[in-house]
């Protein structure tokens, strides 16, 4: 399929106030020329163009996921030809909300983004379709050398830094969806925290898909230098009414000696979004990587945040929640690889299935030979709200070292008749009582979130319980 950029540019330039207006929207389907067009449109350096094209070849070559990781996708056929791979909503990015087109600004105001920024965030990025439309970082962090940009800008402004790390944690050929993202990526956040700098309040990125049949492929790269700290939060906390869209991000994180990174997600896609994301971190000596992953909504989610502990004393913590409602499949979990002595990991997963929804925990725990004194703990709890719903656990445990401590526990429970009766005998309606049990079930993870997000997550769960997000 040939894409005539200039022509499309004209055709889709309808002005900013119309919700259906875009500066540029690629036709449906993916081809080499679409990839070339995206790169050209962004005016990228040659190395990135070549990176994309190599990734595109890998995408073409790679089969759909089979077997352990993502094998279930065969039950949810995905039509790659029915997707717009690049949609640019606005000419330029805003540094103040005034510079953001009204329509989009209104959307993010409805999501509470500018308010949250004023109240409790160190920096904010807001992505609408393929592009980040707003980005800011508070002065005090800029002064300390923290970089928080959309990834496209980072490629232009910090080419050496980006090039050193980009695609090193998740190589393009890692899996079909990582290859796809590497070929057509757009937007996402770039975070760089200099040695010793503690970014005490969170940075947040919001992602919104608006168009139908849209593919959103943001790319995040976070580099935490020695002894630094950052908490990055991503989320889309509003229902998104679209049909058959694909969200396929790649997140790469490098946590250097003694640094700590926490990456929290509260995702709430509409019921027709395929959410197929590759998230991976490498942790060096005494570094700590924490993933807090809340998956609500979407048609299919397949997401297994990973931590590769490469040097002694590295730590990994993965907390995930998945809520599968009617017609949804949440396949979530995590991977931890102990590649050095005295590394520690903890994986806690909680899933809730309702109205025929299906959730599974898929986890890999690998301890390589020589990783003496490694300690690992995996715990997954599933809560079924009715007889039609389903939950499965697929643990993959490979331990090639004797001197290790490993714990694994999986519990499936149903909302007990006795528990419900007990709560209802105190005046709570059945729905409120069930929601309370569910809230209690995920409490161990919610309490790890900053208060604002905890409240938001509980609210979303209650909406799910009411079935209003269907």
């Amino acid at each position: 399929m040939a894409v005539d950029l200039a022509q499309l540019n004209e055709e889709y330039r309808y002005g900013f106030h119309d919700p259906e207006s875009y500066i540029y929207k690629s036709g449906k389907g993916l081809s080499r020329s679409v990839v070339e067009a995206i790169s050209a449109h962004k005016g990228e350096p040659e190395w990135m163009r070549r990176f994309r094209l190599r990734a595109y070849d890998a995408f073409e070559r790679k089969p759909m996921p089979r077997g352990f990781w993502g094998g279930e996708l065969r039950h949810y056929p995905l039509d790659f030809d029915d997707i717009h791979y690049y949609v640019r909503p606005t000419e330029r990015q805003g540094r103040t909300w005034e510079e953001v087109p009204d329509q989009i600004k209104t959307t993010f105001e409805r999501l509470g983004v500018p308010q949250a920024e004023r109240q409790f965030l160190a920096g904010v990025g807001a992505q609408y379709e393929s592009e980040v439309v707003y980005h800011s970082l508070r002065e005090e962090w800029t002064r300390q050398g923290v970089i928080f940009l959309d990834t496209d800008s980072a490629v232009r402004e910090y080419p050496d830094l980006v090039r050193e790390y980009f695609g090193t944690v998740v190589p393009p050929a890692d899996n079909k969806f990582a290859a796809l993202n590497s070929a057509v990526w757009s937007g996402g956040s770039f975070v760089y925290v200099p040695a010793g700098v503690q970014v005490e309040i969170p940075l947040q990125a919001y992602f919104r898909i608006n168009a139908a049949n849209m593919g959103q492929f943001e790319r995040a790269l976070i580099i935490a230098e020695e002894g630094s700290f950052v908490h990055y939060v991503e989320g889309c906390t509003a229902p998104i009414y679209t049909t058959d869209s694909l969200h396929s991000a790649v997140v790469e994180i490098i946590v250097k000696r003694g640094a700590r990174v926490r990456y929290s997600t509260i995702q709430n896609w509409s019921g027709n979004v395929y959410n197929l994301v590759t998230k991976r971190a490498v942790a060096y000596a005494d570094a700590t990587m924490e993933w807090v992953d809340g998956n609500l909504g979407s048609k299919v989610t397949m997401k297994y945040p990973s931590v590769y502990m490469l040097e002694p004393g590295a730590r990994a913590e993965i907390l995930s929640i998945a809520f599968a409602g009617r017609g949804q499949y949440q396949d979530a979990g995590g991977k931890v690889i102990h590649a050095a002595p005295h590394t520690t990991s903890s994986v806690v997963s909680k899933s809730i299935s309702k109205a025929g929804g299906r959730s599974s925990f898929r986890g890999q725990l690998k301890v390589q030979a020589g990783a003496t004194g490694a300690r690992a703990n995996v715990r997954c709890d599933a809560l079924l709200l009715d007889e039609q719903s389903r939950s499965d656990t697929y643990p993959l445990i490979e331990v090639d070292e004797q001197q290790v401590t490993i714990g694994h526990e999986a519990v499936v429970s149903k909302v007990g008749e006795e528990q419900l009766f007990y709560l209802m005998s105190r005046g709570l309606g059945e729905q409120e009582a069930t929601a309370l049990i569910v809230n209690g079930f995920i409490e161990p993870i919610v309490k790890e979130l900053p208060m604002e997000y905890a409240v938001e997550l509980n609210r979303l769960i209650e909406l799910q319980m009411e079935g209003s997000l269907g």
Partner: protein
Amino acid sequence: MSEVLQIRGLRVAVEGKEILKGVDLEVRPGQVHAIMGPNGSGKSTLAHTLMGHPRYQVLSGSVSFGDRDLLPLSTDERARLGLFLAFQYPSEIPGVTVASFLRRAYMAVKQREVSAVEFFRVLQQKMRHLQMPMSMAERYLNEGFSGGEKKRNEVLQMAILEPKIAVLDETDSGLDIDALKVVAEGVNALRGPELGVLIITHYQRILHYIQPDVVSVLMEGRVVQTGGRDLAEKLEEAGYDWIREGKA
């Protein structure tokens, strides 16, 4: 309007097995009605049925409260009408604190929004009465509670929700002597012309503190004897055999 809890000819089955075989019983406002009876005689079945547990199937008979027929009502509707059951075996609800749960219950029963501050005042006062440490309010509901703590927590809930009819299912079991006194005082503090109490127990010890107006004996799903306070004493001394023999 005086709201009497009236049970007539109540027959109840659990999993196809008939447990209550025609129970007649009355609890009047201001009255304490004690029910005693051997293990397995159907006391908890009666309590659960009054509260509308879905697994207890009413075969025939009626239960009314004032002029309301209770049987068609759901459990939460009964609670909002003023019925309360202190459970023999309270459920554990992980991750839900006593305080947050009780505030929701309080709002549900009072049928109005109650601010966290206002509720905290109520909670603090009631907990002090029952000599419960405030730290308990932040623990997860019944999780890891000792037997006695669970029972005390049941009475706390009763004190906060201020029911019109309270069914206490062996609330005295598992309490040490001091706790028994505190709990009994807690119940007595709620007594008044409005409150009717149905107290299920094996021991007349608690009846020293909460003096019953009527004592009924339940055996094999039927009320086989009704009397005054002295009946409880006699049962404690002589057991149930003399009733069985009398019946035979």
